[in-house]
């Protein structure tokens, strides 16, 4: 049995049934990373030593008859913008190349409490800015289905790690689609929970009002289980929601009878990739065949969402990133005086895409343009949110594609930022509205690249999303396909 092809819940059962030890399992994954990560480029920092140490304590616990939790002893990976105490957290940036946080992100505290095994920190677009993981300052991650293709982004390292069996599960972050889009490009499940459901404390901010941590997994069952672990109010994050967390695994049932599914016409646009269109439409009719009711809906402000997003996110980013000045931590490039030092540092240590967004953000916030750009973007954000509120008066759930195309070739659009930004068109509106969404596989292109469908829920209604996703998943074999490197 190939361990690395198994979803986390299968591995969990094996551990619990003592068919394998945590150390054996961890060694297995470490060996696989050592053999194949050179082809994928999923990891920036490997944490093999601490992973094995944790595994040993888990085995001791099991030997002592302790009951294990879902992620206990299960090898996974964490995006490199989530702070890990004592382990480098780089954001895939030269700026933070040697930054070792003196504290843990709140999700890390939760994972550690669970005794989850952390194999390492995964590659990403620098400061989570990008949709292909080509913007990493260190190296590009490759799509396991075809290494000439991008894995998507910005959580490309996490998605590729799970898809290629270099981790049994992973965490990513989603600001404009950064979990869902790479999940769809890599043929796995990725979920962006409701804004505020998972604490952002310790997630190095890109755009605070949009960022959200979420799981990347092989199937919906793993997704529900991990969501159980990472969700919940955190007093260190005032924007986290003070509401009880339901047991999401209770939503792992096959039942969409009478479920009203909305199909937004704005997401099935003219000119979008035919294969994506066909695959998602087919998934919708499959759900209909299982008893769901399909309704056509309209989200009229979708067309403005990208513009609003590319003003709001850079505006927040510009202030979030102003702390990287070479003064207190991170990289420093000397200069004649303090201004020259800061300028030299930021010029040398930020990549092009980061600089581009810092400039857009400063422009949008500057005195003369604030009303015309930033304020207008905030108004659009409200309108987008209202679109969804109205739609959810009529439907329980919305289904749409994740991206207009399947994964594209590395280097094909990296020099065309506008084209790159348009890739986010299907995912960005959710972040603006703070809604939860999942991506799960719904087919493959002729070139053998995965296609993902997106299921969008009401605020805090991850349960209906999981139920719908699980029902659909159990009706096909897409999630069982494995095409990682061998």
């Amino acid at each position, binding site marked *: 049995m190939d361990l690395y092809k198994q979803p986390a819940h299968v591995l969990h059962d094996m551990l619990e049934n003592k068919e394998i030890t945590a150390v054996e399992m961890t060694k297995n994954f470490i060996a696989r990373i050592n053999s194949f990560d050179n082809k994928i480029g999923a990891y920036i920092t490997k944490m093999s030593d601490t992973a094995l140490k944790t595994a040993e304590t888990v085995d001791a616990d099991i030997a002592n008859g302790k009951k294990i939790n879902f992620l206990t002893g299960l090898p996974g990976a964490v995006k490199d913008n989530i702070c890990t105490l004592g382990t480098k957290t780089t954001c895939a940036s030269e700026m933070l190349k040697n930054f070792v*946080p003196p504290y843990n992100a709140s999700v890390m505290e939760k994972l550690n409490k669970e005794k989850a095994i952390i194999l390492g920190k995964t590659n990403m677009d620098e400061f989570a800015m990008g949709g292909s993981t080509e913007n990493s300052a260190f190296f590009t991650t490759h799509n396991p289905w075809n290494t000439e293709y991008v894995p998507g982004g910005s959580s490309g390292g996490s998605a590729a790690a799970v898809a290629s069996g270099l981790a049994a599960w992973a965490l990513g972050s989603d600001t404009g689609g950064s979990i869902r889009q790479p999940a769809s490009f890599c043929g796995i499940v990725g979920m962006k929970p409701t804004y505020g459901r998972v604490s952002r404390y310790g997630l190095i901010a890109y755009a*605070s009002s949009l960022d959200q941590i979420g799981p990347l997994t092989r199937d919906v069952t793993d997704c529900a289980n991990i969501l159980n672990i990472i969700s919940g109010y955190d007093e260190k994050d*005032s*924007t986290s929601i003070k509401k009880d967390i339901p047991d999401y695994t209770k939503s792992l049932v096959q039942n969409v009878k009478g479920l009203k599914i909305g199909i937004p016409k704005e997401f099935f646009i003219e000119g979008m990739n035919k294969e994506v269109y066909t695959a998602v439409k087919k998934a919708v009719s499959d759900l209909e065949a299982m008893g769901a009711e399909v309704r056509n809906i309209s989200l009229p402000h979708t067309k403005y969402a990208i513009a609003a997003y590319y003003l709001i996110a850079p505006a927040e980013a510009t202030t979030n990133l*102003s702390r990287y*000045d070479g*003064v*207190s931590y991170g990289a420093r490039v000397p200069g004649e005086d303090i201004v020259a030092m800061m300028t030299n540092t930021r010029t040398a240590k930020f990549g092009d895409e980061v600089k581009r967004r810092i400039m857009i953000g400063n422009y949008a916030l500057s005195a003369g343009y604030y009303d015309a750009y930033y304020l207008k973007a905030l108004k659009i954000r409200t309108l987008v949110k209202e679109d969804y509120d109205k739609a959810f008066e009529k439907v329980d759930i919305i289904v749409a594609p994740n991206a207009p195309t399947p994964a594209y070739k590395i280097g094909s659009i990296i020099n065309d930022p506008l084209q790159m930004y348009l890739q986010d068109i299907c995912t960005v509106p959710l972040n603006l509205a703070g809604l939860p969404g999942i991506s799960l596989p719904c087919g493959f292109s002729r070139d053998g690249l995965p296609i993902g469908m997106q299921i969008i829920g009401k605020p805090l209604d991850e349960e209906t999303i999981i139920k719908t996703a699980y029902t659909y998943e159990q009706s096909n074999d897409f999630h069982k396909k494995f095409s990682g490197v061998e």
Partner: protein
Amino acid sequence: MTNYEAVIGLEIHSELKTNTKIFCGCATTFGAPQNTHVCPVCLGLPGVLPVINKRVVEFAIKAGIALNCKINNYSKFDRKNYYYPDLPKNFQTSQYDLPIAEYGYIDIETKGKTKRIRITRIHMEEDAGKLVHSGNTIKDSASSNVDYNRTGVPLIEIVSEPDMRTPEEARAYMEKVKSVLEYIDVSNCKMEEGNLRADVNVSLRPVGTEKLGTKAEMKNLNSFKMVENALDYEIERQKEILEDGGCIVQETRTWDDGKGITLSMRTKEQAQDYRYMPEPDLVPIITTDEEIAAYKKNLPELPDARRTRLINDFGLSAYDASIITTSRAMAEYFDEVTNKGADAKLAANWIMGDLAKELNAENKNISESPVSAKNLADMIILIQKGTISSKIAKKVFGEMWQTKKTPETIVKEKGLVQITDTVAIEKIVDEVLSQNPKPVDDYKKGNKKSIGFLVGQVMKKSKGKANPVVVNKLLKEKLD
């Protein structure tokens, strides 16, 4: 020649006396070893998030109410972007368009006249850290270190309308604000520790015109004297330029206290664009009318109300009442003394006189006074009863200051009880009369003034203990 009038506005920054910082749990204690009160949050490390200290909101609301402001039910934080190495995030979390309080006022008094100064707004923000240069200034320093202990200490900024016309008014306004903040116990107001500091705006215009002139701003003035001196200088500087037919440049200036001049820091052209944006890491502050009403109800008596009470209930002069109520500690001290039964006028005189003198000499606060309110009250009561004279009381007070003993103990130990026994005093009077025939003769010849000398002699002989009223009476009886 044109007469100019100054138009002055103040932005007062006051550090709030919370135990912990505004967005994290670090202590706010002043004077701790450098960088010992810091954590990932106030160091602005990547990934951290601020969490509002509820006490800060409470204190800001109290200040708003005490300064007669409208408290906003919906208020939010914003980011104010600028580069400076003592603010590690390189933006300041402050409030921009929706501050916690707006539209207030306070009344000030100068030259016996009351004037209302309007308050535009009060907002909350975080303080910055402190740069410690190896040399005297940043320019001649090989290195500069940063102390982040102060980073994140909560501040309120109180912005006035440009309603002041003279440096004295500006000073009176700042003193009044300080006194109100002290009363409601939200700030230590220790100006020498930077608890209270002001940015001052001033422009000149011809008397009788409405249009505002071009203003200059002076930053970080942390004493009343600095505010007054800087304004005196700046008004004179601007007047000279205008009288020479020149134009005032809108600029930020610093006050060089040593040289007694203001210097240009940056002009409008170099002015910062703060690129404000809503702080996405904090949720809006919602304050209900019920909460505001509850704060209002629990507010202590404020200086103006207290002043009126002292005038009405104790018959103090307006001047005395103002002085006594300037600081809450002094007013409470006064209340304690009078509550014990001491005469209010005497109490006011002793507090503003001997006590204030000693406190100033030793640079002490009234709360650190070695003479407790109880002891002062007891001493005043001894005067009222005639046990000691006012003159002896000065001795007793001096002893109390030195030894902290009660006035009764001092009077007993030193035998300072006033002699009111007529027989005993008559004996001394007779002695003095027989020993001083010349003044007695002078008196009888019509030089009534010589009785003063005789009184003095009796007092001297009695070591000041004879009741002067009795002495006078007896002498007159015997001489006339």
